[in-house]
């Protein structure tokens, strides 16, 4: 098992012929992901090292049986690319693109949500199920296969924690980067729900940061709806209010969205929060040891 991407993933890369799309699309294929097609309007009939390129996603679905899309197209065309994938019948859409306007994401989210589509991102590193499939830009070599689910708003911070887990002999079922934007396609709760239902996942690590209140909502979800243990890390305790810290969504607005408030909400719901990435990895090792 695993969640979002696995051996059944048949991937189409929208923007495969661009430099990023090509680099990561080929890396994903080398990892073993079944990359069945690329889409670039006007380049149908070409191929990227043997991966056929189509003009539209509909063709990629009809001719190559694509069921998952990875989007690398530039921000101003990215919302259109998501609509195209969804309208072509793609069930899982993963958007790497950064700087998509928030208002566009509001509309995309409102359109996609009732259809039951899994939308991950934008402004995210993608999804990796070690040993099965890698869809996006996550460096698979730092992660091992195992039973720990990881969900995060940040890329490198997740790699750091996954790497430390691997050093301790622990691996991951799936790593989901939900992205650093203010309007993400999937929230912590959406991904936690999938981990709860996944037989391979025994424990979940959640990596949050300042801004918004998704961590607080996740805390309640964990308390009320999850049987599996969850551990958390929150970044941004020293972040000043009103400043965007790299990610568009990482901003303390007035007094809301602080790391302290998130930590308190999580702890109040029984979720331990580590103070450093290393401590989180150690807490996980302890929890796994205690369960074994």
């Amino acid at each position: 098992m695993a969640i979002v991407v696995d051996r059944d993933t048949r991937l189409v890369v929208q923007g495969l012929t661009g430099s990023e799309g090509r680099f990561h699309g080929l890396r994903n294929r080398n990892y073993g992901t079944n990359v069945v097609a690329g889409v670039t309007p006007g380049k149908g009939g070409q191929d990227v090292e043997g991966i056929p390129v189509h003009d539209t996603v509909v063709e990629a679905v009809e001719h190559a049986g694509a069921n998952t899309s990875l989007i690398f197209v530039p921000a101003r065309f990215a919302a259109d690319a998501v609509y195209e994938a969804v309208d072509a019948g793609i069930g899982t859409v993963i958007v790497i693109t950064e700087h998509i306007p928030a208002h566009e994401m509001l509309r995309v989210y409102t359109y996609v949500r009732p259809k039951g589509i899994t939308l991950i991102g934008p402004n995210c590193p993608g999804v990796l199920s070690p040993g099965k499939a890698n869809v996006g830009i996550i460096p698979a070599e730092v992660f091992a296969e195992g039973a720990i689910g990881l969900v995060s708003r940040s890329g490198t911070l997740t790699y750091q924690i996954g790497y430390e887990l691997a050093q301790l002999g622990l691996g991951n079922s799936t790593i989901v980067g939900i992205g650093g934007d203010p309007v993400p396609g999937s929230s912590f709760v959406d991904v936690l729900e999938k981990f709860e239902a996944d037989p391979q996942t025994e424990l979940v690590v959640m990596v949050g940061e300042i801004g918004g209140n998704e961590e607080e909502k996740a805390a309640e979800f964990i308390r009320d709806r999850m049987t599996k243990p969850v551990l958390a890390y929150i970044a941004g305790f020293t972040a000043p209010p009103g400043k965007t810290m790299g990610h568009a969504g990482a901003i303390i607005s007035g007094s809301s969205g602080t790391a302290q408030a998130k930590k308190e909400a999580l702890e109040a719901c029984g979720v331990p929060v580590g103070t450093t990435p290393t401590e989180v990895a150690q807490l996980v090792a302890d929890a796994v040891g205690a369960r074994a």
Partner: protein
Amino acid sequence: MDLYEYQGKELFKRFGIPVSEGRLATTPDEAHLAAAELGGQVVVKAQVLTGGRGKAGGIKLAEGPDDARAKAKEILGLDIRGHVVRKLWIERASDIAKEYYLSLTLDRGAKQPLFMFTTEGGVEIEEVAEKHPDALVRLHVDPFEGYQPWQARRLVYGAGVEDPNEQKQIVSIVGKLYEAFVATDAMLTEINPLVVTPEGEVKALDSKFTVDDAALYRHPDVAEMRDLDAVPPEERAAREKGVTYVKLDGEVGILGNGAGLVMSTLDVIALAGGRPANFCDLGGGGDAEGVVDALEVITADPQVKSIFFNVFGGITRCDEVARGILAALDRMTIEHPIVVRLDGTNAEEGRKILDEASPPNLYVEPTMLDAARRAVELAA
């Protein structure tokens, strides 16, 4: 991007939301001229991108041009929560019978725009929400359905506005605010207070307006409103070089790859007993060019005593990053001690490369916490 009151009002005016007539002034003489043109009583208002102006003495009533000049002298140069006043908005004074509150924000939790309206305006909205939650009417808008006039009626009747003349004007303002919000890709628009004059006229006496940075490409007129003089010089230089940088108030300069990891690095510096001087994200890469640009921005801050370079090598391997750091140090002179932590792909090779070259001011540490402690020590 946050707009000044006067810029927000300019946008309000453009979309038909009534505001008082006013002029911008940057000197006491300009304030005098503005007051003379406007005639009668005027309000002299500090333009700063922070709240609490009134309490800080940044808003004053003036009886006429001479008084406006005197009041401008008092307010210009004032430090309001770290923001120095360099601009004034001189506005025709309004008689106020009632103060209401109206806002439209992008509600991240609900992923929909959210209207909030109350007749208890003029104070912090958090206070109203806490003390009289029933007085605050909240209404989400489906982004596809868009604004419909019933929504404004719901706000007005829900908040208990009884005067038909007021109702009519507020309904119109609500619709125009939605139009402005969508047309400018706003994250937040707030009118507090929305006043009713003794004559029954409803207008926006203040504005708070934040526009989505990611959408500025399609609003060049709004993008032009950015006041570069209000940005710390280090942040301005960073913007020019394309470096993601936020100035903070400590001694340890921070450089890392990835926003989350850098935020975490700041926290670890604090845990180690130090204070971070900045947030600086190199992004995915670690090439010499990017490192030079970032180090130049960080060391331009005179408060910086040491630098903590925290890297996790993923697709960009640590040996490449190590070569990038050495190449950068070749191309520039840095007196500051630099503590480097490399972890992830090829970390060992990376550390070996740095150890062998061993520039005198470079310290290599194996873990984030060790490196943080060392950087804090070196900044002391």
